[in-house]
């Protein structure tokens, strides 16, 4: 019996498995018919040049999958019914075209329409800039080797006892202890493990906070400009987002005081304001805390970017200064582990611990076990800090070479550089350069930049760009910026002529 078998090359898969996969495929595709005999062992070993024992092993594998049956004396046959086969194929897939005339979709709820509108807008405004993904850190610095070792170590029967601990929606106790110690060490937060809550998706953190605290039409004060994704998550709940200006000391509390009605929630990124990079000053931190305490508002401190500093002062987190039990602190491990780990966490104020755990169980009751176990070791055994240090060293170097190139070629085209975030700089182009020209020149020269427009909820700013330096190549950046400068001059000259 002639049967075309293609053994896919997969380096990590045993030969017999590759054969059984191929045969399985042939059965599924109907090339080997139900109830018919399988090719004989000799036939296969001749055509594929495989040993008898490999083929026997493959057949054994197919047998355990229920795809073939052996009849003693007469050989091996394809099963007459495949496992899970229901005797009938699913009817044709429904599309709008062949749907009955009477069909009316269920209308969305009121909040459903808001969610849909905000989500759709987010999908369109989200620009995929590879250099800005992965939490902004270069993928080649990701400690995958260490991570793999830890994951493999914990994928083991001896972890049976920990399985029962998966029931805590806050996360494994040991992991929360490790994180509590970590934020105490690095961010002076002394809340303790009972206040720590682990999340499997970083967006769920604000989703939970917002759902527990905000009703539609409640006011949320949000940094302007500010990180669009989190603003969208809040906005999708129907709350009123009130943009509050940011100056070089961070969110303007004076502007907060001018609001006609105090907000219920205030969202800030004090370590490096996202995207402008300002570090919130110490007096401002106290002022903000006092404002929140006096008005009863909660502060969400998004510490997404505290890891990398380049000679700037280290200030304690707002959470560490909080005596009013009003700061909700959030952070993640994206800077080092984005590739394989989506875990992030919140440190609740005492007053939200119980309701936080309960609410969490509605949105995400269970967290991945292996990742949590691996992360405990990753934090406690010093991998995390080691990798942060290594990454910071590389980033500082790349940042320097980008700054150098910008000073060399763009000095007259941009306003003086101010610090951006931990992985990017902010460029403000002179008013005579149009955004279209800047973007075109960037594309031509391969210079990575992204307009800050999505970061603004109200009036956007022309000529303001985020330039990531995490993936900058020291050898070519000088040339890239040079080409960009030339292209921009040429572009602008042309459009000025046209005007």
């Amino acid at each position: 019996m002639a049967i075309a078998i293609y053994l896919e090359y997969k380096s990590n898969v045993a030969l017999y498995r590759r054969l059984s996969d191929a045969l399985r495929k042939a059965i599924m595709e109907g090339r080997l018919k139900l109830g018919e005999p399988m090719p004989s062992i000799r036939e296969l070993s001749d055509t594929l040049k495989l040993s008898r024992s490999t083929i026997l092993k493959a057949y054994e594998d197919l047998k355990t999958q229920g795809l073939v049956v052996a009849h003693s004396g007469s050989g091996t046959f394809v099963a007459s019914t495949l496992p899970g086969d229901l005797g009938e194929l699913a009817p044709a897939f429904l599309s709008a075209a062949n749907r009955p005339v009477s069909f009316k979709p269920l209308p969305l709820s009121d909040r459903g329409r808001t969610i849909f509108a905000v989500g759709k807008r987010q999908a369109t405004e989200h620009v995929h800039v590879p250099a800005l993904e992965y939490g902004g850190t270069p993928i080649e610095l990701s400690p995958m080797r260490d991570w793999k070792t830890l994951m493999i170590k914990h994928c083991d029967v001896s972890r049976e006892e920990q399985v029962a601990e998966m029931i805590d929606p806050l996360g494994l106790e040991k992991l929360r202890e490790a994180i509590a110690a970590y934020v105490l060490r690095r961010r002076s937060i002394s809340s303790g493990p009972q206040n720590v809550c682990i999340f499997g998706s970083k967006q769920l953190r604000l989703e939970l906070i917002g759902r527990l605290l905000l009703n539609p039409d409640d006011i949320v004060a949000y940094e302007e400009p500010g990180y669009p994704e989190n603003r969208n998550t809040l906005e999708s709940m129907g709350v009123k987002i009130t943009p509050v200006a940011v100056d070089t000391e961070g969110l303007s509390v004076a502007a907060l005081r001018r609001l006609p009605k105090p907000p219920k929630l205030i969202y800030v990124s004090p370590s490096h304001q996202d995207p402008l990079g300002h570090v919130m000053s110490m007096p401002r931190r106290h002022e903000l805390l006092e404002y929140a305490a006096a008005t009863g508002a909660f502060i969400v401190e998004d510490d997404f970017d505290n890891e990398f500093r380049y000679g700037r002062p280290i200030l304690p987190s707002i959470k560490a200064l909080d005596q009013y039990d009003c700061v909700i602190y959030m952070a993640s491990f994206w800077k080092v582990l984005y590739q394989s780990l989506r875990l992030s966490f919140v440190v609740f104020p005492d007053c939200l611990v119980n309701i936080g755990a309960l609410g969490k169980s509605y949105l995400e009751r269970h967290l991945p076990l292996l990742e949590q176990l691996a992360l405990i070791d990753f934090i406690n055994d010093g991998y995390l800090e080691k990798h942060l240090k290594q990454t910071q060293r590389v980033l500082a170097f790349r940042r320097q070479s980008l700054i150098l190139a910008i000073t060399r070629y763009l000095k007259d085209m941009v306003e003086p550089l101010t610090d951006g975030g931990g992985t990017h700089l902010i460029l403000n182009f002179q008013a005579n350069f149009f955004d279209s020209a800047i973007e075109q020149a960037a594309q031509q020269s391969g210079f990575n930049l992204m307009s800050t427009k999505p970061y603004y909820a109200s009036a956007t700013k022309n000529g303001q760009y985020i330039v990531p330096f995490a993936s900058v190549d020291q050898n070519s950046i000088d040339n890239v910026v040079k080409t960009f400068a030339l292209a921009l001059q040429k572009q602008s000259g042309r459009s000025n002529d046209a005007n």
Partner: protein
Amino acid sequence: MLIDRLDLALDPTSGVPASRQVAEALKEAIIEKLVSPGVILPSVRDIAKALDISRSTAARAIDELSAQGYVVTEMGSGTRVCPHLPGQSEELPPRDKVHKTVHLSQFGNRLKERFDAGLVTAKTAYVGPLLRELPLSTWRELLVRHCHAASKEESQYVPEPFGYQPLREAYASYLTRARAVKVSQDRLITFASRNLRLDLLARLLLNDGDLVAMEEPGFSAAREQFLANGAQIAQIGVDNQGLIVEQLHELKTAPRLIYVTPSHQAPTGAVMSMNRRKQLLEYAAKNQAYIIEDDYDSEFRYDGRPLPSLQGMDTNDRTIYLSCLWNAMAPVSRIGFMVVPDPLVEPLTAAKGLVERDVSLVEQAALADFINEGHLEKLIRKQRSRYAVRRQNLLSLLAKALDTAYIAPESAGLSLLVRLNNHYEAAKIEQAIASSQLPMTSTRSYYAGDARDLEFILAFAAIEESDLAQRLELFTAALNA
């Protein structure tokens, strides 16, 4: 000099590090206003010299104060006492008296009410497969395959709200084959865990006060999700053919959603009959309602073929189908899936992107291979035969140990519904369960209305035969004591 005024005496015998002592003394001086806000502190060198300590010790002390917010260090201009001290604002009560009152949202308040009434808890017991009965070496192999730095798929991967495409393709083909679900990968959504699925549906489709029809008894977790989002529940009875569809017709207003578990009704175990399925589909089409089919453990049937999914029979595209791998492989992957009708694809793309744009790529890629290479079906087969034996074993043990009034005859799932004869005392049984750790729980939480006395669920699957026998023995001993 300032330092001399502060009267800093270090106590070398106290065991407290010198830097901490210096920091504490300075902090006290700042709080007591011996040093005014805004004043520049002596330099590290001066402090070190004055106190006869090393410079690094003095620097550590300053760092500590800075971290606590009492001083700020500015490049070039030295260290100042913070103009704004922590907890020193006059309008505010002193530090330890602050008591934050929390004003919860409606959602938050509903949760709190249910919690205060003892109807929900944050933690519930683990019911899922044993780790040692999973193909861990295969999973390790897959982790190794996908856990490596800067692989091509990783660096080019743009997060998709519906999940990693190869995984969606693999699971879609599995569902078509194994469950006769009408599905293509663009209608299949991957979720990191199970809960978000119903939460998203409730928010997208229900206004406050909208009606959701549910089986009574039925899954409490599902009921709580709907209630938390402001829905009203219509309790529809269940008999040995599943949901009693006639009762739907008696409702004054038609529900917007009908939540059912037709393959294996939770907790009674009833399989919805063909007739009822047709009636239900007809009802949904006529009343413009959506059916939510939770196919949570259809993999585990012990007698013959499973019935095809309800969704696969639906020619009106009114069924939302839920499936997940929890019961098969919880400790290594808890990914949940949802197949939605065409009109919901767009709204769910938007909504999912807002709450969970990303699920671990390693896990998704590993799972895709796990399915494509036949490991999933192999695992389920193995579990099925293992659990069938355990179920049989439990039945014979039960016959000897307890006087049961009724054992659900349907041969499916990971647990067994048992009713005891009423000469048993409920309180005594609870005690015996607690002392023997028998995986037996009252079905109370499954009922929105009055619960049935002496009705229990026995989870037999994820416990070895000898272990179960032992616990049952302890249980009967405790009961008869």
